[in-house]
C-alpha cells in the first residue's frame, strides 16, 4: 500500500515539477473531456480554471499563499485575518478587493454551512470569526467550494484564475488564457472543455486525436498502464465507504459492526478495481496518516455471525448516488457480502436509494494535511467529532473514537488518473488529483 502511495506521490511529484527540463512552450488549444459537469462541486474543472482560492495546498500538504498572501490566527483560532494580494484583477477588469472576497464567501455560505460565523472586509484584509476554534482555516479555504467568484454585468461567472470563459457551443466550453493572471499567463492559449462524455467516447476521441486529455477511472487504470499510455496518477483521493443509518435493524452497534465485518474489501479492490485501490478501514489514506493499518480491514464472517447472534434480519436496502457501472458492481458485491453474514439486503432502486439505510458513497478528499483531511472527511460524512492535536497518535485516537460508532465503514481509497495525448507536455495533477491545465503546454506550440 505504502509503495503504491509513494509511487502515486512520485507521479504527482513529476506532475508537480514546475518547469520541465525542456522548457514549456506557449500557445495552442488544449482539449479535454470529462464525464462530470464542469462547474460541479468540488471538482468541476471549469471552476478550477476560472476561479482561485485564498490559499492553496502543495503536494506535501503545506498551505501556500494564493489570493491571500499571509494570514494570522487570533483569539486561539476563533479569529483569522488574511491579507489580500494586491494588484489582482477579476477577468472583467475589476480589482479584487477584500469586500469582493467577503461577498463571494457570503454567497457560498448562503448555499451551505460554512464553519465560520462571519467574514468581513477590513482594509486590505478579510477577518473570519467563529464560535469554535478553526485551527485549519487557511487549509480549509483552499477547498474549491470557497473559490472566489463574482458575476459580471451579463451574469457570467468571473474569477481571477488563469482562464476565462468565452463561450459554450456544441457541448464544449471554451476558455481563453487570462494574460493578466496574477499567477502567470497559462501556456495554452485556449482550453476546450467537453463535458458529460462517457469514458468510452473519451477514449475513442483520444485515440483519433479529437481530444488531448481524458479521464481514466480506477477500474481502467491497469488497462491504461498496460497499454503504456501517458497516465499521471494521483495519490488516493476518493474514499469508497458504506454509511449505515443507526435505526431499525441496524440500531445496535453490534449489528452495524457485524455488517462492517462482513465486507470483503480485498475482493472489491482486486476484482472490480484491478488492484488499483488501497484497502482501508480508515478515513485517511495510509500515506497521509501513516497509521491506517491500525484499523483492521480483514473480513471476519464468523465474528459477524456471532455479533448478529442469529437475529433475523428484516429487508434492508443499499443505495448509491453514483450511477457508474463500477459503483453498481460494488453495491451488488456489498449486498452479497452482507447476505453471507445473514443480512437480507437488496440494492435499492433509483427511486428509493436516498432513503436506504445502507449507502455506498464515493467521497472526494481535497485536504493535504492529516488533521485537515480528517476534519474534511468528518464534515463530508456529517459526523460530529473534535480533532484536537496534530500528532499522529492524537489523530488516530480521534478517528478511532469516531469509527467505533460503526456508522461509517471505509472500504477503499482510490486514485484519480488522466490520459494525456502525445501533444501534451508536463501534465500535472493537483494534490486532489485534478489536472493543472494552466501548467500544461503543447508540443509544437511557440
Amino acid at each position, binding site marked *: *500500500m*505504502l509503495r503504491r502511495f*509513494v509511487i502515486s*506521490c*512520485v507521479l*504527482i*511529484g*513529476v506532475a*508537480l*515539477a*514546475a*518547469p*520541465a*527540463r*525542456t*522548457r*514549456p*512552450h*506557449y500557445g495552442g488549444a488544449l482539449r479535454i473531456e470529462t464525464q462530470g459537469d464542469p462547474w460541479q462541486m468540488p471538482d468541476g474543472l471549469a471552476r478550477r480554471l476560472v476561479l482561485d482560492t485564498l490559499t492553496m495546498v*502543495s*503536494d*506535501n*500538504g*503545506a498551505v501556500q499563499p494564493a489570493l491571500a498572501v499571509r494570514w494570522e490566527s487570533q483569539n486561539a483560532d476563533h479569529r483569522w485575518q488574511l491579507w489580500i494580494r494586491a*494588484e489582482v484583477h477579476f477577468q472583467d477588469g475589476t480589482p479584487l478587493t477584500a469586500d469582493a472576497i467577503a461577498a463571494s464567501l457570503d454567497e457560498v455560505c448562503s448555499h451551505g454551512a460554512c464553519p465560520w460565523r462571519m467574514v468581513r472586509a477590513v482594509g486590505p484584509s478579510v477577518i473570519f470569526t467563529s464560535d469554535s476554534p478553526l485551527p485549519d482555516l487557511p487549509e480549509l479555504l483552499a477547498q474549491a467550494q470557497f473559490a472566489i467568484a463574482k458575476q459580471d454585468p451579463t451574469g457570467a461567472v468571473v474569477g481571477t484564475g*488563469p482562464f476565462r470563459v468565452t463561450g459554450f457551443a456544441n457541448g464544449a466550453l471554451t476558455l481563453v488564457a487570462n*494574460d*493578466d*493572471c*496574477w*499567477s*502567470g*499567463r*497559462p*501556456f495554452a492559449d485556449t482550453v476546450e472543455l467537453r463535458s458529460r462524455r462517457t469514458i468510452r467516447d473519451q477514449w475513442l476521441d483520444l485515440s483519433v486525436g479529437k481530444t488531448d486529455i481524458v479521464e481514466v477511472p480506477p477500474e481502467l487504470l491497469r488497462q491504461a498502464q498496460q497499454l503504456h499510455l501517458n497516465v499521471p496518477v494521483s495519490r488516493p483521493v476518493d474514499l469508497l465507504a458504506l454509511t449505515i443509518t443507526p435505526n431499525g435493524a441496524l440500531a445496535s452497534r453490534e449489528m452495524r459492526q457485524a455488517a462492517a465485518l462482513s465486507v470483503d474489501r480485498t475482493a472489491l479492490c482486486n476484482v472490480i478495481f484491478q488492484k488499483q485501490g488501497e484497502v482501508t478501514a480508515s478515513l485517511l489514506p*495510509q*500515506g*497521509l*496518516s*501513516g*497509521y491506517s*493499518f*491500525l484499523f483492521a480491514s480483514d473480513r471476519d464472517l464468523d465474528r459477524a455471525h456471532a455479533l448478529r447472534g442469529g437475529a433475523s434480519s428484516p429487508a434492508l436496502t443499499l443505495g448509491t448516488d453514483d450511477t457508474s457501472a463500477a459503483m453498481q458492481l460494488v453495491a451488488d458485491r456489498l449486498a452479497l457480502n452482507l447476505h453471507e453474514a445473514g443480512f437480507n439486503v437488496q440494492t435499492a432502486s433509483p427511486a428509493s436509494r436516498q432513503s436506504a439505510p445502507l449507502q455506498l458513497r464515493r467521497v472526494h478528499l481535497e485536504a*493535504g*494535511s*492529516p488533521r485537515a483531511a480528517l476534519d474534511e472527511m468528518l464534515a463530508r460524512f456529517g459526523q460530529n467529532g473534535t480533532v484536537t492535536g496534530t*500528532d*499522529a*497518535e492524537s489523530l*488516530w485516537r480521534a478517528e478511532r473514537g469516531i469509527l467505533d460508532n460503526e456508522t461509517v465503514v471505509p472500504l477503499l481509497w482510490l486514485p484519480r488518473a488522466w490520459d494525456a495525448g502525445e501533444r501534451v*507536455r*508536463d501534465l500535472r495533477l493537483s494534490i486532489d488529483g485534478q489536472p493543472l491545465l*494552466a*501548467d500544461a503546454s503543447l508540443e509544437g506550440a*511557440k
Partner: protein
Amino acid sequence: MRSAGYNPPQRMMHKGSLWAVVALMCVLPAARAANWEQPSADLAKQIAALAGPGPAKLILRNDSSLASAEIPVIRRLLERDLRGFGVVTGGSESATLIRITLSENLRGGLWVAEVVEGTETRVTMLQVSMETVGPSAGGSGVTLRRSLVITEADPVLDAQIFSIGGVQKLVVLEPERIVTYERNAAALVASGSAQSSWMEDQRFAIAHTRAFPRDIRGELMPAQDHLFDAYLPGVLCSSTGASTQIAVGCSDSDDPWPISTPGSGAGSSSGSNPGPQRAFYNALRDYFTGVLAPGVSMELPPFYQAADFPRPTGTALLLNGLDGRVMLIENNILKPVSGANDWGSDFAVIRSGCGSGVQVLVSGSGAAATGDSLRAYEIAGREAIAVSAPVTVEGAVVAIHTANGAASEAASATVIVRRDAPTRYEVWNVAALCN
C-alpha cells in the same frame, strides 16, 4: 579570454566546496548510524511506559521507504534501548507482544508500536525524520562532482556565493524574495554538512507591479560597484552597501540581461567590445526575444539560454533556441551545433581547465521526469561531444547557471533541482574535475 578580475575568491569558494564534500564523505557512515539512535531511544521509552519491564516478543515490520539494510540496524538499536528500560525481547513464549511498524506519512517516518497483552492492544507512535545523504557520481573525460549547497522549501531561481568584506554570502534568488546566508564555520565542522553551514542573514521582498510568468526564471549577476544584480522578468533588483549588511532595491525594468562576461565580445569578430553582451528577455514568457545589445550583425530567433564560449579564434556565443536547436555565433556567422539533441533548455559554460579547458553542462531533454541527468560536453568544430558520464539527478533540473558570484573564473555551475514528495529545491554546485 577572462573577464575583469572583480570577485576574485572563486578559488576559495571552490576549495570550500571541495572541503565540504570531503568532510561530508568522512562523516557519512557515522551520520547514518546515528540517524536512528535518537528515534530508537525515544520509541523504546514510549514502549516501556506501556509494557513495563519484563520479557516480550518483538516483531518489526518495514512499511516505509527505508532500505532493507537499515532494518537490522534499527532492530538492534531498539532491542538495546528496550533492554535499557528492562524490556527483554526474544522470548517467543512471552505474554507481551510488541509489534513495531516502520511506517511513513507526508511528514516523514512514523514508527508505530502496538503493545499486545491478551486482548488489549495499546498503541504509541513516533514521528521520525527520514533525511538521508545522497551520493555523488563520476564520468569518463571529466568527472562531474556535485555538492549540495542548500535546500529550500520555496522555488529557487538562482543561488550564488559572493564575497564581501572577507565574508562569504550565499545569495538565493526566489520569485518573491532574495535571501542571504552567511557561512557558519562552526556548524560546518560540527555537522560535516555543507548545507547546514549556511545561516540565514537577511531577506528582501521583490517588489513587482505585474505578474510574473508561470515558468519564471531569474539570474544573479555580480556587479562592479555593488555586490550583485538580480534579473527577473520585468524586474531588476540591485544590492547596495559595501559592509556585510546589504540592502536590496527592486524596480520594474526592461533592461537586457547580461549573457556574457564583460570584454568577451561574444559572437562578434573583433572581440573588443568593452561591455558584456546583453539580451532582452520576454517578461511575459520564459525566453529571450533574440534581440541583443550591443547585438550581432544578424537577426536571431528567440532563445532560452546563451553564454559566451571560448573558441580558438575568439569568443563565440552559444545559444539554445526554442525549437531545441543549439547554435554558435562565431565571427558573425550562425552555425548549428550537431550532437545536441539530448540537451535540455538550460546550460552553463564552465571553465574546468580539463580537456579543451571549457565544457558545457547540460541537463536532459524532454518533459519533467522523476529522474533527470547532468552531463558535460565539449564542442569541437560544430559538434557537441559528451565528455562525462551522465550524472543521475533525483528530481528535475529546473535551472543551470554558471557559478559567477565569487567565481569569475566560472569553474563550476549552480544547478537547481526540484525534488518531490515533499517538494523542495536543492541548490547544487557542480564542478568538472579532470580525470
